[in-house]
């Protein structure tokens, strides 16, 4: 069955330190992978996506993510965290073997950046 796991409900990082938000997935075909961010009382905003090619994807606000096919992971990273990065982060996957092409969403990870 298709699924997305974000194993950490919350990640705490000091400002200026590198951050990682984890995501693993399970699909039967090849995946398209996405990261979205949700600020309080707002809708979700697209950060970045992996389609094919280079395993390291760069996105908005200095974020990047690394696709690892053998570990079925797509972790979100940033070299130096800002307090303004504090938000809820969602990973999502689209299974190319699924004709509906619906996104499967993770439960979200709350990222807290402390000054």
């Amino acid at each position: 069955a298709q699924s997305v796991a974000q194993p950490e409900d919350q990640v705490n990082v000091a400002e200026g330190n590198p951050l990682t938000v984890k995501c693993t997935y399970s699909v039967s075909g090849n995946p398209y992978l996405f990261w979205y961010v949700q600020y309080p009382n707002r809708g979700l905003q697209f950060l970045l996506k992996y389609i094919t090619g280079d395993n390291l994807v760069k996105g908005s606000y200095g974020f990047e993510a690394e696709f690892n096919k053998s570990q079925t992971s797509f972790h979100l990273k940033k070299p130096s965290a800002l307090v303004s990065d504090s938000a809820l982060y969602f990973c999502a996957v689209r299974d190319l073997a699924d004709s509906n092409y619906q996104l499967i969403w993770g439960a979200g990870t709350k990222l807290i950046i402390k000054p």
Partner: protein
Amino acid sequence: NAGVTQTPKFRILKIGQSMTLQCTQDMNHNYMYWYRQDPGMGLKLIYYSVGAGITDKGEVPNGYNVSRSTTEDFPLRLELAAPSQTSVYFCASRGPIRYNEQFFGPGTRLTVL
């Protein structure tokens, strides 16, 4: 270019009442989606549409209905509201390519008492 807009922002309903959540996009996207987000949970797909006149059920369609008479509008109808429908509702749209990202509206926070 307003993107995806939703109205209302907040609403309190009594059990058994009905209402329509409005969603409009100005990006000429064929694909549109309705999600609900419960506290501490991810998004669950309620209904989606691949174009005007075409809708289909998602993961949690019970208690909801949709219509898509135009490309721009995708209203969600709640009939006989129940406390279990207390949630935040998001509308989204995307372009025609499979790997296009979805654009989200600001959400409607609905409470059923």
